[in-house]
């Protein structure tokens, strides 16, 4: 700025190129050109060093800026809600996906439960029916003299027998059977 006229003093093109050089904005030919100028003019070297110092200071002290809220409060709230909805949507999707998976598992779960039930009942039926081939006699008593009872398992016939000796002969009389 010129203090006498109050008008902006135009920057010399070398200074503009120098700024471009410091910022790394120049192409190959421009860079060679400004370098040759700097070599010829020692004041430009000082200018270059000065500009590099300024950029270094600026780089180290970048102010922390935050984006200001939307000036329209209502719309900013709407925007916030929309963002919140967007964040919640994946959780809902996961939940619905889980429910869909569970509903797909319904038929196999039913089948498995049925198979387990049938196996359990079949096992019980097996052990209660054909599991043991013999009735187990734990005690036998007779109440007449000379009558004796012996219990045994006939492996050949596959049956338990109580063999009683000494019963009195019963003659056939009409109407007995």
């Amino acid at each position, binding site marked *: 700025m010129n203090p006498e006229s109050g008008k902006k003093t135009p920057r010399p093109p070398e200074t503009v190129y120098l700024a471009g050089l410091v910022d790394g904005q120049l192409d190959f030919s421009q860079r060679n050109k400004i370098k040759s100028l700097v070599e010829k003019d020692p004041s430009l070297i000082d200018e270059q060093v000065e500009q590099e110092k300024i950029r270094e200071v600026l780089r180290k002290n970048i102010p922390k800026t935050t984006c200001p809220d939307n000036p329209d409060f209502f719309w900013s709230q709407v925007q916030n809600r929309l963002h919140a909805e967007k964040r919640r949507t994946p959780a809902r999707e996961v939940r619905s996906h889980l429910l869909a998976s569970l509903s797909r598992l319904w038929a196999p779960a039913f089948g498995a439960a049925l198979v387990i039930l049938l196996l359990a009942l079949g096992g019980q039926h097996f052990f209660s029916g054909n599991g043991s081939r013999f*009735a187990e*006699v*734990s005690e036998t008593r007779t*109440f007449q003299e000379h009558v004796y009872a012996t219990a045994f398992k006939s492996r050949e016939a596959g*049956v*338990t027998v109580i063999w*009683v000796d000494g019963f009195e002969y019963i*003659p056939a009389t009409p*109407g007995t*059977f």
Partner: protein
Amino acid sequence: MKFPLFFPALLLAAMLMTEGLHAQDFVAKLVYARNQPPQEKSDPGLDPALLKKIEKTFGYKYHRIAAQARSPITKYTADFPRLGQDFSLKIEELGHQDGKYRLRINLFHKNKSLLETTVDFRKDVPLLIRGPFYDQGELILVIEMTDK
């Protein structure tokens, strides 16, 4: 909601089916076995597998059911099924576990006790008791438990 209803229903069905398996009848058959052929050919009225067991054990050729009785098994309650005019039984269930029934059985002839025995029965597993000689052969008591 289907899930909360399904498992109680399944449990109920299992209980009913298991109860059905537990419901057993006591069946007693007094078989008249002999070697002389009967005057009229008749069906012995016995299950072929059971008949084979009787034949193998006692060695008679001809068999017929002279009398039979069926009664439900009721825990700690005695039953007195009759077998013809002169024979009868007293049956008591002493308990049951895992399809095994413990029964006390008394055989009577004209109200006189001949035999008392305690036996663990399973379904369709018979017990044979050699009874007295009768007429031209022998009486054999067949006891088993079957589904109702």
